[in-house]
């Protein structure tokens, strides 16, 4: 029997589901292995009978927690996809600001009608079996994770920093180009794609297990950032992880 698969979205841009919808040919092969029962991005039907749940977006409201818990109950495997779901992502930027102020900016006068609380990755609410990091995630890694789950193995997600891939790709280091990069503390797995394109790493895949943040900060400062600027480098994506 093919495993039944469902996709869910929370606070996020749905960029990750788009990546999946964009899998084109590969999706045909993939569909041979699984049965998609719910996927708002491409289909209308919905079913609560599924084995693997892919969850995109972060949890930003109390009400989200209930829905997540229901998904956890229904599914035997829960996979977080994209930075918002895996590490809190960009949403957790707001964790550094006054929440009421954030609400006002976002919702203006209607702010009081909305509940919002610290944006968090879904594993802050339910247990998660596998992660597809990235903002947006890459389809290569998504396929890797799906294949691994179907084979019954733990997906191989690196616990080394982006620099490893960056060196293998023989890039000129961002620091040598006068830019500031947080690849040395960011979990690899994206094949250092941003640096390959001539920019730098912003940290969208979250921190490695044991980042040497002090050293990273000192490096940023050595190359010319102020202490505050160095700290703010960590906030774009590491907002939730840093609060913990």
């Amino acid at each position, binding site marked *: 029997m093919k495993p039944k698969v469902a996709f869910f979205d929370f606070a996020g841009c749905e960029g990750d589901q788009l990546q999946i919808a964009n899998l084109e040919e590969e999706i045909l092969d993939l569909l041979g*292995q699984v049965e998609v029962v719910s996927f708002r991005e491409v289909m209308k039907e919905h079913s609560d009978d599924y084995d693997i749940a892919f969850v995109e977006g972060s949890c930003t409201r109390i009400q989200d927690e209930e829905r997540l818990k229901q998904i956890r109950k229904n599914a035997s495997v829960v996979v977080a996809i994209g930075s918002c779901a895996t590490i809190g992502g960009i949403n957790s930027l707001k964790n550094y600001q006054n929440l009421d102020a954030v609400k006002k900016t976002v919702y203006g006068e209607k702010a009081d009608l909305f509940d919002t609380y610290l944006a968090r990755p879904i594993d802050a609410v339910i247990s998660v079996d596998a992660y597809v990091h990235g903002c947006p995630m890459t389809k290569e890694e998504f396929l890797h994770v799906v294949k691994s789950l179907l084979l*019954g193995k*733990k997906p191989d997600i690196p616990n080394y920093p982006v*620099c*490893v891939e960056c060196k*293998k790709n023989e890039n000129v280091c961002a*620091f*040598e180009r006068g830019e500031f990069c947080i690849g040395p503390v960011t979990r690899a797995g994206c094949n250092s794609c941003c640096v390959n394109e001539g920019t730098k790493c912003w940290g969208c895949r979250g921190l490695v297990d044991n980042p*040497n943040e002090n*050293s990273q900060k000192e490096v940023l400062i050595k190359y010319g950032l102020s202490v505050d600027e160095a700290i703010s480098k960590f906030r774009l994506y590491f907002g939730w992880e840093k609060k913990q």
Partner: protein
Amino acid sequence: MHTLSKEAFEEFIDNLIADNSLNVVGVKSKGEKFAFGPLESANQLRLDYDVTLLPPKKYFFPQRETLVTFDVASGFQAKDPKESKSNVLVGVHPYDIMALLHMDEVFRETKSDPYYLERRNSSVIIGVNIQNLTEQCFAPSMGCATVDYGYDLMLTNLGEKYAIDVGSHKGADILNKYAKNAKKAFARDIQAVGKKKMEIVNMAQQKFNFSSELIPEMLGKFYEKDSFWKDHSEECLSCGSCVLVCPTCYCFDVKDNPDLSLKKGERTRTWDGCLLEDFAKVASGENFRDTKATRYRHRYFKKGKYLFDRFGFVSCVGCGRCSSNCLPDIANPVNLFNDMYAESLKSGIEIDSVPVPDISIKTGEIIEFAPKIATIVKKVPMTANEIMFELKLDNETDLGHQPGQFVQVSVFGVGEAPFGVSSSPTKKGTFELCIRKLGNVTSKIHTLNEGDKVGIRGPFGKGFDAEFLKGKDLLFVAGGLGIVPLRSLFNYVLANRKDYGRVILLYGCKEPRELLFADEILELEDRDDVEFMSTVDWCPENEVWTSNVGVITTLIPKVDFDPQKTYAVVVGPPIMYKFVIKDLKSRNVPDDHIIVSLERRMKCGVGKCGHCQINQLYVCKDGPVFYYSDIKGVPEAL
């Protein structure tokens, strides 16, 4: 020596490029830096470069390459090492040539790597004498600023022309075939080349404050200076940059990548590095180099001492890439060794240079990367977490192992993992493995059933010397899963019982329900030619246990043995060794009468990937079985 005018040189290179049977690569600019890449025209060449981002090793040992393809229907197929085109590398600096000569030794030793060697044999190296150096380069201090061999052609820029030294027949042929108007060099050209080579030696800004010959000896005296290593590695990002860019680093990881059918796929190897946090971590969660300091130290020892002891050279060519790629700037060998030297002066540590060790390197065998297929003929659950599998090679041959050797078992699409063979070689036709469920490979194996296929490589490593042990009294000490490899020798001894003296088995596990081979052990009770005792660390209330309760060392005082006649075979979890060995020593068992079997993370199984290394030794190749006398001076061993 020959000379070619600059125009004639460009024509020479363009002729090489025009030949479609060749893949011509050379040094080109990349942003503000330089890199080897495919040449479309000679005018892309930047022979005035200082250093390339990655060394040319990427053409011989690429960042990622397929070793084996697999198909559930037809098994494993090793990739053909033959390349369709030969590489011509234009503009290799002498230190990188030297680094390739170092790599040759590594990939040739004992079992040779067919992919690396084939690429080396089919490639052409056109070197160039250094015109510019980075601030971090210290090649002259390592004696690697110039080379007299290791190239097919060597260029020296003499202004309006290049001097070309021919280093091999291949080089002569290439020059003959593709270069027009090559002239014989005049005496003054030869002199000019000599002068240029002398100048290079003085160009470097980084220098040791002592003779580099002292490095191996000095390292030896600093191994245990924990604060020295801790202080120097405090800022380490564990980013691996220093090893990934190094022309003499060769460690790799191996991974299986199934395609979407999940039935076919490939096994690839990728660059890995000992500075990365999980390099020496095993499935049980134990990390044999769990601090920045120990990993950082390992790199310097590997280059400065272990490879020196093994091959007779310090495996650093002074290219300076590690230091220019280390963001916190802590990877510069010149700074580290100068600090070490200063500290040794300060604390009065005397350092003499050591003679180059006697090296005898075995070569000849070729690594077989493709596993043979075996079928599971029997699956017997032993405990909640351990299952015994009886396997039969599909080619109907015996495994041909020595007691104590191990095999690498492949599960399609999931990966490969090492397991000690648990059956005695006297058991013919099939062999047994007893596997504890921990991570990916082991969990998947547990789901396989009789009739299912797996891949087998090996047997590998050095086992127990059953021949040598004949006539001796044997004291077997097994802790937990340690009984598994030990059983191969134990059963062998029982099958040849009259050849051995006393046989004593002490076996301990955590609790009664974890006891392995319970049936066989029960039978031992009835034998009068085997002395047997067992123990559990503790017995929960709902279980029954009538023997000893306490850790394994509580059994040792209960047996009487003659330490001079007895050989102790000890296998168990890492923490058991320290205690058991201490007790055996206090009973006067000589160090060379204590035999252990070690376990480390493994990938290749043949002494190449670097994962299983304990100081200078490779567990997969020099072990897993060791005499205590051989490893008591090896700090990472126990």
